[in-house]
């Protein structure tokens, strides 16, 4: 009987014949923590009487969620991380370096076939490059830092076969929002998602990251894709680590398989206050918005900024509308500057903030006021997510956000198709 990608990677890393629902202890290839979770992890690491991390090269800590620090309490947490990183000689990314989920693949820390944990729920992002990566909490992170191992329940797999070609003005963000709306927020709970098919093959690696990033929003443990030539080229451009790609067997056993045709897909919008509350854009066009956000680990990559800049070039935000641009890394920001994209945004009236999580988690960089509507490229629109529980968050593609801030209301980006 064949195996899924998840079963193969967990077999390889545990040295056992791992099948869905088995519990295995497996070796970790990389371990990551950010500033919302590392403080508690360092405390747990010390309480475990651990002295040294298992391998400093295989660990990174990233200050991205509240960067630069807006508060004294946050500064103390950041200080604690800097001291720990220095003592343990691990990889460390400070304010302005970017979002953890951009940095981990961009800096070449992970390669196909790896098993990775991160103390951040969107760690599933690296599934797009054939990595079994999953989010954990701080104590699991501490166990990983200390031992280089973690226990896993081998997940069943939910396979999504995406056929057809995405129409112009419709992007990978629209595709994943559609899938989450279809299967709901717990449609893949405890499962690995595998995304395959012609529509996935046609995407760039950057576009694929957007899909795997949101696997957790359907409850999935990871959002896996097979590696193709594009994946291999992308990984080789970012990493010197050797790797072997992992494919699912043709006779692998899936808990669920769903097939879709994307060729008539409209741009999609997730409405307040849940990510699975998804509508085609035609149902929400005209909803007033006071703030737009383009960035985050979901859609803060160079391709996203190129798409947004194409729409914003030579145009101005609607009066009374704000736009926040948060590049996902220093590298992305530099590239956007070289290509003149940052200039386009600033000319249009946008505020560009430090590479990092930006206003997504509600700690700084653009907390909306009571009753305001925000349209964002982020991955969560929970009540209070951006720091005000009386604001309303809509999620969409960079193109839809760019079109919407030009009108001050949710707008269909296909109007700007060239």
């Amino acid at each position, binding site marked *: 009987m064949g195996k899924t990608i998840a079963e193969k990677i967990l077999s390889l890393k545990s040295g056992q014949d791992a099948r869905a629902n088995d519990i295995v202890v497996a070796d970790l290839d990389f371990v990551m923590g950010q500033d919302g979770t590392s403080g508690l992890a360092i405390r747990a690491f010390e309480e475990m009487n651990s002295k040294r991390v298992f391998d400093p090269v295989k660990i990174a800590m990233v200050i991205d969620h509240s960067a630069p620090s807006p508060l004294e309490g946050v500064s103390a947490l950041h200080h604690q991380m800097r001291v720990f990183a220095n003592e343990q000689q691990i990889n460390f990314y400070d304010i302005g370096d970017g979002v953890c989920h951009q940095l981990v693949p961009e800096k070449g820390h992970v390669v196909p076939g790896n098993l990775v944990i991160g103390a951040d*729920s969107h760690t599933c992002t690296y599934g797009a490059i054939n990595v079994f990566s999953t989010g954990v909490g701080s104590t699991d992170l501490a*166990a990983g830092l200390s031992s280089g191992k973690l226990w896993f329940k081998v997940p069943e797999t939910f396979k999504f076969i995406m056929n057809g070609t995405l129409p112009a003005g419709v992007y990978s963000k629209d595709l994943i929002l559609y899938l989450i709306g279809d299967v709901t927020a717990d449609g893949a709970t405890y499962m690995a998602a595998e995304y395959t098919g012609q529509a996935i093959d046609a995407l760039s690696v950057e576009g694929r990251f957007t899909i795997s990033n949101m696997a957790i929003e359907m*409850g999935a443990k990871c959002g896996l894709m097979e590696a193709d030539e594009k994946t291999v080229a992308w990984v080789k451009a970012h990493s010197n680590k050797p790797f072997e790609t992992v494919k699912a067997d043709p006779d692998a056993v899936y808990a669920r398989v769903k097939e879709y045709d994307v060729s008539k897909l409209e741009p999609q919008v997730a409405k307040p206050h849940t990510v699975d509350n998804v509508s085609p854009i035609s149902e929400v066009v005209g909803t007033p918005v006071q703030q737009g956000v383009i960035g985050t680990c979901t859609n803060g990559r160079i391709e996203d900024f190129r798409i947004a800049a194409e729409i914003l070039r030579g145009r101005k935000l609607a009066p009374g509308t704000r736009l926040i641009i948060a590049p996902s890394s220093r590298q992305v920001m530099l590239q956007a500057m070289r290509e003149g994209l940052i200039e386009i945004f600033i000319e249009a009236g946008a505020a560009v903030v430090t590479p990092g999580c930006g206003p997504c988690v509600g700690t700084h960089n653009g907390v909306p006021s009571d009753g305001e509507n925000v349209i964002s490229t982020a991955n969560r629109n929970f*009540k*209070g997510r951006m*720091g005000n529980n009386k604001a309303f968050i809509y999620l969409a593609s960079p193109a839809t956000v760019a079109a919407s801030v030009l009108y001050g209301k949710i707008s269909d980006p296909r109007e700007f198709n060239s």
Partner: protein
Amino acid sequence: MNLHGKVHKFGNDVNTDYIISGRHKFKTLDMKELAKHVMEDLDPQFYSKLNKGDFIVAGSNFGCGSSREQAPLAIINADISAVIAKSFARIFYRNCINTGLPLIECDTDLINPEDELEIDLGAGVLHNLTQGIDITITPLPPVMLKILNDGGLVEHFKKYGGFNFD
């Protein structure tokens, strides 16, 4: 271990932002302070209504969203004795086991707000004292039971110096 308290009931898909908002959790590692804000965005008066040992009862997918361990820690520090739901999101589930917060999976349609419950974790029985019924609990897998019985993952590591499920 026997748990006893009153029910505070919520719906489906209660996410970790609702359990403890990001605007609070980044400020401090003082969990007693964070506990005062538990479930605040769903019920601003929640913390003031609690008595020691009370239960949070919810529908499916409790704890979805972010990986923040402050979520179970804030619940523990609000003196809530267990969370009872139809199902849990997986990161939250692991975090509860690791930090020692008992989780109970059962049919929560049989539990109403304000009901008084008694739970015998050892025997795996939930008594709804108000309604006079017993509700079956889904048992925990052995690995998780082992970590919970050791007092959480930190204590497990202190005891064995790493993972030990033999």
